[in-house]
């Protein structure tokens, strides 16, 4: 049961991380970096947009981090990490060449295939754009399979805008309706001001044939659910990505429970219809 087993049977023990090496670090924001991690041996496992990995920083611990890279690209896992705790601090301090542990991918995915033929509304708040980016890559790479595609992105301040360069590129496309807004505009900002859910009623989509994908702070998701439902989108076709404390990522540690759901295995992406009963309640 030595180390050799790890590379031969990667998922034989889902508690044990694989070894990865940091191949590139991109500073996104003051407290946020994007890491590209390549496996030391073997192929990087395939993943679906919306899934996450457990990243391990030596001696500090593990943290659940969503995958933010392009599912069509091979070789590395791309993770955007904000420095908000002991583990994420250690992860965001990794330099090119540094080793990290990784288990995954885990969890459910955005319904990028189920949405084919329909209008798509993507609503992201803050760092919530990171788990949606793989879905955006997929949809834009297969643009002809979808109806109207809208991306609504909101941040607290202009300085919090993630993936700014890519947002500008997507904005240039004529087949995507992309709107960025900030809660608190400063003198440098000449774009939209206001919270992201308020953009929904200004967006063109067929409410009876739309799939919505929403990720951001819970309060932002609550208002987005209300706006989307108010616009006539079915609860079954609104998807959101939940965040909860996770220790094991495989449904055994109990931490991520949200009512009957284990966010790690029944989520993180769930149709709103599955959680609507308890989503508006506090401290679930």
């Amino acid at each position, binding site marked *: 049961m030595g180390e050799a087993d790890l590379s031969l049977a990667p998922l034989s023990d889902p508690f*044990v991380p694989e070894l990865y090496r940091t191949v590139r670090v991109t500073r996104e924001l003051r407290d946020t970096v994007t890491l590209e991690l390549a496996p030391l041996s073997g192929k990087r496992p395939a993943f679906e947009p919306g899934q996450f990995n457990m990243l391990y920083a030596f001696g500090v611990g593990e943290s659940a981090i969503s995958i933010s890279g392009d599912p069509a690209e091979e070789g590395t896992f791309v993770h955007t990490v904000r420095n908000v705790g002991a583990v994420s601090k250690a992860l965001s301090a990794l330099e090119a*060449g540094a080793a990290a542990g990784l288990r995954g991918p885990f969890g459910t995915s955005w319904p990028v295939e189920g949405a084919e033929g329909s209008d798509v509304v993507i609503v992201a708040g803050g760092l919530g754009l990171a788990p949606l980016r793989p879905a955006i890559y997929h949809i834009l790479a297969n643009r002809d399979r979808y109806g109207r595609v809208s991306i609504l992105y909101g941040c607290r301040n202009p300085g919090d805008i993630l993936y700014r360069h890519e947002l500008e590129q997507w904005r240039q496309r004529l087949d995507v309706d992309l709107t960025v807004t900030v809660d608190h505009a400063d003198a440098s900002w000449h774009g939209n001001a206001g919270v992201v859910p308020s953009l929904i009623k200004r967006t063109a989509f067929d409410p009876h044939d739309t799939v919505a994908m929403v990720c951001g702070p819970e309060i932002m998701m609550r208002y987005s659910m209300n706006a989307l439902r108010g616009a006539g989108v079915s609860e079954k076709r609104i998807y959101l990505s939940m965040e909860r404390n996770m220790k094991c990522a495989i449904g*055994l540690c109990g931490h991520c429970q949200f009512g009957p759901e284990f966010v790690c295995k029944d989520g993180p992406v769930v149709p709103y219809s599955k959680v609507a009963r308890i989503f508006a309640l506090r401290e679930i």
Partner: protein
Amino acid sequence: MQDTMTAGSKAVLSSDALQALIVALARQGYTVLGPRVRDGAIVYDEIASSGDLPAGFRDRQDAGRYGLEPREDGAFFGYAAGPQSWKRFLHPPAQTLWSAQKTPDGFTISREEVSVPKLAFLGVRACDLDAIAIQDRVFCEGPYRDEAYATRRANVFIVAVNCSQAGGTCFCVSMQSGPKADTGFDLSLTELLDGTQHRFLAEVGSEAGAALLAELPHEPTTGAHLAAADAIIDNTAKQMGRHLDTDGLKELLQASLSHPRWEEVARRCLSCGNCTMVCPTCFCTTVEDHTSLDGFSATHVKKWDSCFTLDFSYVHGGAVRTSGAARYRQWMTHKLASWIDQFGTPGCVGCGRCITWCPTGIDITEEAAAIRASQCVKEESDGGA
């Protein structure tokens, strides 16, 4: 002694045969774990002979109360569930999952070797058998299995003991888990004491149990033995210290998430987590990373955790369940409602430990009854969204 034993076969053992049973298990390589008196309570620990068993003790239990008293009849198993359950042997309180060693260009990870002793559990009550079956579902039915649990579980020999006396906080009858062990054992025993004779009615539950029973000095059963055993079970069933009305309880609790009772119970709850530690089904764990002083090696250790801690629900920025009310609600609705959604069974077996070992005597049956009694009060306001 060429009688063929199969599941369901019964025989009568003398009380001396208990010693032979322990010896036979040890000879087969089992470490025998059973009840013994320690620190004023009946706990589960290694036993070498029947002399280690708590003969002559009974327990008195009520909400927030536990004590041992002498009993006259010399019964080996004349007590109800103690503070520990068998969980600690199948799902240990702390386990090292893996360790990492620093190397010049990074680190390596090595899995922890799991040593799996053959354990024999002597004296497993029906409620705890049900609890083991519930944890089997949690850990073994996927999509991911806890292989360490499954391996330990596969190596356990279970001698069940039917309860001849209910405790003051017992409600296994309400949860349909007892007092008789119906399944999930290798051998079950019912202690028969009639003033002159001290015997056990043994029932075979598996091939391994049949083989073991065949090795022990035993006699055929008579109608009188079977009737005496049935009477003991019936009598125990009538002694339940508590009752929980489970009819529609899942739906009731799930419609009562904003009920004022959660605030009320939170005023009595210390959020100490005792209930989760003594619960035989509570399975939640956290992980800790321990680093050596030189910083060159680290171990990743899984430990029991409790949904009553603030840290349990921590995500960046703070805990999700900050109030005691939300934490008690999480625990109780998980036990009695969402567990059914998750695993097709409640997470409660009616052993009463959470009631007995709550320092303020909070009683899950009383809390459920209070919510049922006032269910109409709050229902409408939950209906929104």
